């Protein structure tokens, strides 16, 4: 992923404050501060990466920055924004964008991502990833917002596909066509959340495999896996909720296996944000992802050798 490397001409940041760690084909986990002592005490030399929600590190100082700086010494870090409101109709919050850019500069994350969603409107912040219609007008607006973010941080972001519970009657294109066109216009990369694909496909009655075959897998720079919960819609049909509160479902593991088989090993994150288990449980999920990545790495390596031979 050479495009995702730290931008070479970022002035002061050219002298790196943190070691450069490789992230290709690695599994990682959400970084939760309660796990820090276990992670530091872990005898096993673990090369996994950690992902943090950018907003949690936008305070001036204190324990959050101490913990992130500590983990960043030994591990690759991925910076995941949850509140940029890229999918909203209003202009981006310049102060928030400035804080985001400052974090990229300070922590030199290997990956930087945000969501195809919105969370702010008017003066209110709704603390959820809200959905948007897929139209020419929203396509233009989202593309402008991504251009603005990439300009502000001096590098490419990865855009995450949403999990959604409803559709907009005004939508004129599919989510995959929308995402494909955003990539073409902005040059951004993609964070493919396989659980979100499964959740949305179930909720809207389409096939997750069809979604993946229309999705630009070649632009993926990171994968997310997470657990989901089950509810029912108005007609008693299954409605899946992207809850991030449990282990990855078997069906999602199978889709992940297929995706990696097609696009090769990718940095893959286990997201677990509520009902957070002890570190060994989370680590075991990451190991399960790593074993799938490693299995495909072997065959992708062989293919490369064949191609060279």
């Amino acid at each position: 992923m050479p495009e995702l490397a730290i931008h070479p001409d970022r002035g002061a940041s050219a002298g790196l404050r943190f070691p450069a760690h490789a992230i290709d084909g690695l599994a990682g986990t959400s970084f939760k501060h309660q796990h820090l002592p276990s992670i530091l005490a872990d005898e096993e030399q673990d090369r996994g990466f950690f992902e943090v929600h950018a907003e949690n590190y936008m305070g001036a100082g204190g324990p959050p920055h101490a913990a992130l700086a500590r983990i960043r010494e030994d591990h690759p870090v991925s910076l995941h924004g949850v509140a940029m409101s890229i999918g909203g109709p209003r202009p981006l919050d310049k102060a928030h964008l400035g804080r985001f850019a400052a974090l990229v500069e300070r922590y030199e994350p290997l990956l930087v991502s945000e969501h195809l969603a919105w969370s702010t409107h008017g003066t209110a912040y709704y603390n959820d990833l809200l959905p948007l219609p897929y139209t020419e007008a929203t396509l233009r607006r989202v593309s402008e917002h991504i251009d603005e973010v990439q300009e502000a941080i001096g590098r490419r972001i990865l855009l995450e596909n949403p999990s959604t519970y409803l559709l907009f009657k005004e939508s004129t294109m599919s989510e995959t066509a929308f995402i494909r066109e955003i990539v073409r216009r902005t040059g951004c990369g993609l964070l493919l959340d396989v659980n979100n694909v499964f959740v949305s496909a179930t909720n809207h009655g389409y096939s997750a495999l069809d979604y993946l075959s229309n999705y630009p897998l070649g632009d993926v720079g990171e994968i997310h896996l997470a657990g989901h919960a089950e509810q029912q819609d108005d007609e008693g049909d299954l409605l899946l909720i992207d809850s991030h509160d449990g282990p990855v479902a078997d069906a999602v593991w199978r889709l992940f296996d297929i995706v990696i088989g097609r696009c090769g090993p990718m940095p893959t994150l286990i997201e677990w944000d509520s009902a957070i288990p002890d570190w060994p449980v989370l680590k075991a999920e990451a190991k399960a992802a790593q074993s799938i990545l490693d299995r495909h790495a072997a065959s992708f390596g062989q293919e490369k050798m064949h191609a060279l031979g």
Partner: protein
Amino acid sequence: MRSVSPSPPEPARGCRYAEGFTPGLLDPSCTTPAFVAGPNCKAADRRFNVYRNNVTVSLMNALADIFPATLRITGEAFFRAMARFHVRETPPTSPLLFEYGRDFPDFIERYEYAQSMPWLADVARIERAWLDAYHAADGGVLSPAELAAVPPDRLGYLVFEAHPATRILRSAFPAVTIFSVNRASGPVGRIETTAAESALVTRPALDVEVRRLAPGADRFLGGLVAGETMERAASAAGEVNADFDPAAAIRTMLEAGAFAAIRHGG
């Protein structure tokens, strides 16, 4: 620099979804927007309710995280009902959730069902200050040696620079005692004191510390934080409490790391 337009540009046609989507997120009396649906035009009430629930519950959870002692005092059901009212009335205005809840103590003070706990709002104010101290900028603290190096005849003229984490809160109730026992994990027994208490909240390194300040000491440290000279702050504290002990107050402030530096010494 490009010039800044006085008001945000009107959203383009086809960008009105947020205006239609947001009112129902916090107002349960709003119906599901007409422009959303399930697949094959299925009804979407329960689908829209997922978003209503995500927004309201996640913000209630944010308040529960910021105000754990308040929650422990009131119990889960009481707290969640109170938090739901507040979330609907006053959603966050910043995408940084650790900034949320600044209006919650005032809301608690007005909240009909909390009137029997007149000290609850002050406990919440200490909790809010605790989180501000947690996220405050890092900085060194004034050492006893720096203060000891000042000639005694200059002490009265000293002016101090507060450490970024330092907060002082006054209460007419034993709010610090109530806060402390309810933030700890042990059992909470009967609280015998009814005396007014003030809190000194500091974070000299990574751990936030909350101390009870003696009457007068709160006025003294509050004066120093506000930029008064030591002499002026001490004399004002003496008016509040004839038994005010400046030496003890100075020991407390050094131990707590309340100040970063001596700004100037007259």
